[in-house]
């Protein structure tokens, strides 16, 4: 069954997640769908599985338009999805999970079907084991077999190799190729170029909700990278107005848990005045590094040193870091940095290290008023944090930022901001703070990283794979390192 997306668009309020997406996936092939985080891959697949409605366009299967209002309708059309996190029921056995969603069959027939399928694909699954005792890879195998058993003919795979072992990957890939050879239509969503190249016969690249590239095997990697991360911006000769001095932050072979793969063998030294961009795909370790430096995460091994002090491995680490004038601004502002139901002036009351027992409400209001004026926040001192728009929340956080910060850690500082607000944020960080302040930031936008950093650290699967001055590297080299390929492609 061929699937055709015709001029699909999807808007979330005023945000355009997908614009005019047209592509065809043929049965009997594996079609790769690639793009950086937020490019619109998942939204497109959610529309196909009926989890999300589309704002415009048509979906055709074998030439006739179909309606997909809920996941049940999608599965009736033979559309099934293998999720990144297995969508199964851990207290049930393998066989019980396998039976879900399939037409009624006796237990013996079910067992027979499961065993036939496991043999056919070379998996090793014990039908009577509880799913909670299995690895992610094995659970994925059950899901896959279940989907096949439910007569899925259009199979979507979302980052299927995340969290599975190399051996399981060895088993998965031939299985997928076999399925495609049997006539199944497979859509593979991934950001791992090497996997896409080895499996897919066709690839479509999405960027900012639009199709930027479409290619058949064999693939030309530089073209794909450009389509994924945007065209290579001209190298500007950076003028360093910032002073670079002594080392202030040191990671000594740090190991920590967090995000998908945690962080391993992390050795980093940050100097006074540096602006360092942390690049990497979502969850590759950047956020863990920022949280370790802020004292919000505790290393399992190794030490984090700030201004010559080793951070304690206890809950007091974050207070210690703040005493040393380290500030952290998380990406999820309302979830991690603001108090949704508290007023702006309350936020100003909380800031700082005043030791008085009583608080002055009037003083907080004055501070809030000044902050609102200086940082052009659209809001009043009495408004609650959740009343503010994303951009104004970021302005509020900057207004609350310790002005004497010696190290500022930012997680995706322009997340959800329009271009102008984003520029404003950077202008503030680079020009209002002391030039001795070191800035460490992560961003999913490679352009932002290349534009503002002096130095780039690239993460892949919890390890640092590149640490270079921005002038010594290129857009392509960083993009290549991000996708986990060993050699830079020219």
């Amino acid at each position, binding site marked *: 069954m061929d699937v055709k997306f015709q001029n699909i668009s999807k808007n979330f309020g005023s945000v355009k997640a997908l614009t005019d997406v047209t592509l065809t996936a043929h049965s009997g092939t594996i079609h790769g769908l690639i793009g950086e985080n937020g490019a619109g891959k998942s939204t497109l697949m959610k529309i196909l599985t009926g989890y999300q409605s589309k704002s415009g366009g048509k979906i055709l299967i074998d030439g006739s338009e179909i309606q997909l209002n809920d996941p049940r309708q999608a599965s009736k059309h033979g559309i099934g999805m293998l999720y990144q996190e297995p969508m199964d029921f851990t207290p049930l056995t393998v066989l019980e999970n396998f039976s879900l969603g399939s037409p009624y069959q006796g237990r013996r027939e079910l067992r027979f079907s499961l065993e036939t399928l496991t043999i056919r694909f070379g998996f090793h699954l014990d039908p009577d084991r509880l799913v909670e005792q299995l690895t992610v890879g094995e659970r994925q195998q059950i899901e896959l077999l279940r989907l096949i058993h439910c007569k899925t003919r259009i199979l979507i795979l979302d980052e299927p190799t995340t969290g599975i072992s190399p051996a399981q990957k060895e088993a998965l890939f031939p299985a997928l190729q076999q399925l495609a050879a049997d006539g199944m239509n497979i859509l593979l969503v991934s950001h791992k170029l090497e996997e896409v190249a080895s499996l897919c016969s066709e690839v479509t690249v999405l960027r900012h909700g639009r199709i930027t590239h479409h290619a058949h095997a064999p693939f030309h990697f530089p073209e794909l990278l450009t389509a994924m991360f945007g065209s290579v911006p001209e190298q500007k000769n950076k003028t360093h107005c910032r002073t670079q001095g002594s080392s202030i932050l040191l990671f000594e072979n740090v190991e920590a848990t967090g995000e998908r793969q945690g962080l391993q063998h992390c050795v980093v030294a940050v100097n006074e005045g540096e602006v360092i961009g942390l690049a990497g795909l979502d969850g590759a370790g950047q956020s863990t590094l920022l949280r370790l430096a802020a004292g*919000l995460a505790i290393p399992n091994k190794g030490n984090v040193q700030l201004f010559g002090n080793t951070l304690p491995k206890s*809950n*007091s680490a*974050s*207070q210690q870091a*703040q*005493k040393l004038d380290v500030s*952290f601004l*998380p990406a999820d502002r309302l*979830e*991690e*940095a*603001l*108090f*949704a*139901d*508290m007023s702006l002036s*309350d936020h100003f*009351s*909380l*800031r700082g*290290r*005043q030791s*008085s*027992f*009583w*608080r002055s*409400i009037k003083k907080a209001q004055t501070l809030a008023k000044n902050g609102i004026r200086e940082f052009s926040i659209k809001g009043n001192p009495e408004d609650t944090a959740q009343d503010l728009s994303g951009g104004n929340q970021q302005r509020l956080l900057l207004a609350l930022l310790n002005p004497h910060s010696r190290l500022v850690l930012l997680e995706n500082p322009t997340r959800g901001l329009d271009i102008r607000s984003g520029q404003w944020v950077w202008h503030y960080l680079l020009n209002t703070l002391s030039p001795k302040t070191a800035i460490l930031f992560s961003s999913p936008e490679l352009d932002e990283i290349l534009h503002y950093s002096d130095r780039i650290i690239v993460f892949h699967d919890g390890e640092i794979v590149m640490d270079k001055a921005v002038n010594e590297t290129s857009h392509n080299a960083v993009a290549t390192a991000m996708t986990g390929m060993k050699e830079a492609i020219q």
Partner: protein
Amino acid sequence: MKRLSLDILLGSLLVFGFTALVLLIAGAPVLASFKNIWLGAFASTSKISQVLSVWVPLMLCSCGLIYTFRANLWNIGIEGQVTMGAIGAMAALRIPGIEHPALILTLAFFASFLGGGLWGLLAGGLKTRGGVHEIFGGLGLNFVAQGFILWLIFGPWKRPGIASMSGTELLPRDLWLSTFPGWRVATAGVIIAVAVLILTWLFLEKSRMGIKLKAIGQNPKAALLYATSPERYYLQSIIIAGGCAGLAGFLQVTAVYHRLIPSISSGYGYLALLLVMLSGYRIILIPFLALFFASLNVGAIQLPIVLQLDSALSGVIQGCCVLSALLILGLRQKRKQS
């Protein structure tokens, strides 16, 4: 403010409607029942003072709970904290060799605060150090406190001669908190309750601790970025809550029962939990709601005597109050979301 009064009006209508329905089902005269509850609570100074002596411990427990609720802690261990406060007070009152009653009573006052506070600290420590949710820790400690008081009454502190469920030996008269002539409520108790109420309002609304508790209650993760340790404030708030509950225990011993009895907390801790939820965590409503609950409690005693109804009716009304308050809050939340 307008919405608040609307809620109160709507809530009262719901409560009276629902209670009337229950009365009708039970075949009782609706208006006569309400009237008797009213008379039972306010017909004489003796009745009013009875209401007040319920009001005092309810107020103390509720004020304490406001601190923990601010930090988003469910201090269900408040019952045990009342009990431990009473035990602390009794332990001080039994210290031999102190002649001056005022001195012993002062000691008992502080000992009760300490007893309740430490019991709260235990639940708090279980949470912050041991990862035990405060509901389970508190509930467990309630049983421990209950076991402890029974052991004391039947063991080391038993009446000379024979141990009894009715409690320890009565305290000497000079250790009873004094009352105004004709009133049956200890003056000191009312003063303590009002003082704690004012202090609570000051601490929570005007001090830095108040706003930090609020911040932690809303978003402990974000609080870390404001150099505020959630653990520290969890412990502080639960110690204060336990201390306030302990004072309720002190008054139960020195002003109401004049001895230690197994059910010294009288369930006021649990009732205060409902009361504070009903208030929507607003300090200003607490004295009025406490008065309402106390008068229901006392007034309903009248029902079996006059109308041959079960006094459990007051429990039904209190339950209706809380359910209707939660209903109003829930509906508002739902409307906000859609």
